C-alpha cells in the first residue's frame, strides 16, 4: 500500500531571490519546485521548467530539500546534500 503523500509545487523565475520570485508570470518561470510531503518527511526538487511546453526536466535539478519530520518538525535542517536520496527521487517521479 503506497504511503500517502501530498504533492505541492511552486514556480520560480531564477535560482536567487528577485523581485518577482514570489509571483512569477508564466512566461518568466524557469524552475519548478515539486514537493512530496509524507507523514515523516518532506522531499522537494527544484527542477528546470519550460513554460512554453509546460514541461519539467527532472534530469536538471537546481536544488533539493529533505526534512525529516520527527527530528525536524519545523523544517529548519535541510539534509538533502548529506543523504542519498535516490529512493525519494524515484518516488517523486
Amino acid at each position, binding site marked *: 500500500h503506497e504511503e500517502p503523500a501530498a504533492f505541492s509545487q511552486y514556480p520560480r523565475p531564477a*535560482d536567487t531571490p528577485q523581485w518577482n520570485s514570489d509571483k512569477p508570470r508564466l512566461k518568466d518561470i524557469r524552475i519548478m519546485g515539486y514537493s512530496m510531503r509524507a*507523514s515523516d518527511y518532506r522531499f522537494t526538487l527544484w527542477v528546470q521548467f519550460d513554460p512554453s511546453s509546460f514541461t519539467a526536466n527532472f534530469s536538471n535539478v537546481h536544488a533539493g530539500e529533505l526534512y525529516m519530520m520527527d527530528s525536524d518538525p519545523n523544517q529548519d535542517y535541510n539534509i538533502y546534500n548529506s543523504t542519498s536520496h535516490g529512493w525519494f527521487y524515484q518516488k517523486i517521479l
Partner: protein
Amino acid sequence: DGMNVLFIIVDDLRPVLGCYGDKVVKSPNIDQLASRSMVFSNAFAQQAVCAPSRVSFLTGRRPDTTRLYDFYSYWRAHAGNYSTLPQFFKENGYLTLSVGKVFHPGVSSNYSDDYPYSWSIPPFHPSAEKHENDKTCRGKDGKLYANLVCPVNVTEMPGGTLPDIQSTEEAIHLLNIMKTSRQKFFLAVGYHKPHIPLRYPQEFLKLYPLENITLAPDPWVPKKLPSVAYNPWTDIRQRDDVEALNVSFPYGALPEDFQRRIRQSYYAAVSYLDVQVGQLLNALDDAGLSNNTIVVFTADHGWSLGEHGEWAKYSNFDVATRVPLMFYVPGVTTSPGSPGARVFPYLDPFSHPGGSAPQGQSKEVVELLSLFPTLAELAGLQVPPACPQPSLGVVLCTEGPSLVHLFNISEGREGSGGPARCS
C-alpha cells in the same frame, strides 16, 4: 442523499486554531464546528498562492493540469474545459451560490467567477472589497496609510463596514431564502481575512496583548535552505508600514517588535473571522438547516508568520501549504439532532475559551485535490472518475481520491465539545 452543502473557504488561513492545537488563537466557533466534524490534521494545498490553489481544488486537477501557476489564464481557454465542483453540483440539481472570494477574481476565473458554468446566479462580491487596499489605516501621526498591520474603527471605514461582514450578511440572507424553498443548495462563502492587509475591527486586539505574543520558533533563514526555495515576501514589503522600515532585500529581517505585531494582527484577524463563521453557522441553525446541510471548512493555503525568516505564502514549506480541513456531515459525524436543537450556537471569543476537540480526526496526509470527490460522495452523487494521465482533454475527472473512507467516526458519539484543547 439530498443534503445541502455550505462550503466555507478562508483566504490565507494556516491551521492556527484551537482545534488544531494552537494555544494562542481564540477560535471558539470554528472549534465548535470541529467538535462536530471529521478533521484532517495534515491537509495540504497544491500550490501556496491564491488563484492556482483555488482553481486546482475547485476543478480537482493539479496546477500542472490547469496550467495555472500565476493569475493570468483561465483554464477553460488555456488548458482544458474542466468541470468544477460547483458546476458538478449544479448539473446534479443543486442551486449553486457564491458569496465573497471563492474563485480568485480576474483573469483566472474569466472575470466572472466562472459564472454561469459554476453558479446558478451571478456571484456576490461585497462592495467594501474595492477599498481593501485603500489608505484606511490610521498611523500614529493620525494620517491614513495602506499598511500591512491595520486594526480599524469599522465605523470610520468606507460604508461603515468591511468585506467579510458584508459577506456574512449576504450568506445569511441567502440561507433565509433557501429555508423556505425545497431546492437543494450548494452555498460557497469565501472570507478575505486573514489575507493581507491585516485589516480587522480594532477591538480584536484586546484578545492578544502584545506582551503575550512571541516570535516564530525559528525566525531565521535556515543555513542549508537553497536560495531558490526562499520566498522573499515581496508583497508585504510594498505596504506602507513595512516599506518605512527599509528592510534590505531579500534577506534582511523585520524588527522583532514588528514581527510580533504582524503575528498579533494575524491572530486578531483569525478571531474576527471566527466571529463571522460563528454568525453564519448560528444562522444555519436559525434557518433549521443544520440537520440537512454538510458544512466544509478549509483554506486555499497557509501563511508564514516569520518561520524560516519568511512571511506570506509563496513557498513549499508546511506553514505555507498546510490548511485546516473539516467536514460536518449530519448523521455521519454527529448523530441526527433532535428537531429544533441548536447545533452551532454562536460563541463569543471574548467570553468563550473555545478549543473543543474534534469529533473525529485523521492524521493521514491528504490533499485539497480530494475536496471534489469527497463532497460528491458525501452528497450521495456519482463520484467523478479518477483522471487518466494526462487528462488535458477530459472534462470531468479528479486527480485526488475521495477521503470518505478515512472518516473514523464512532457511531452516534455526541459532539465532544468542551474545554479540552485538541491534541
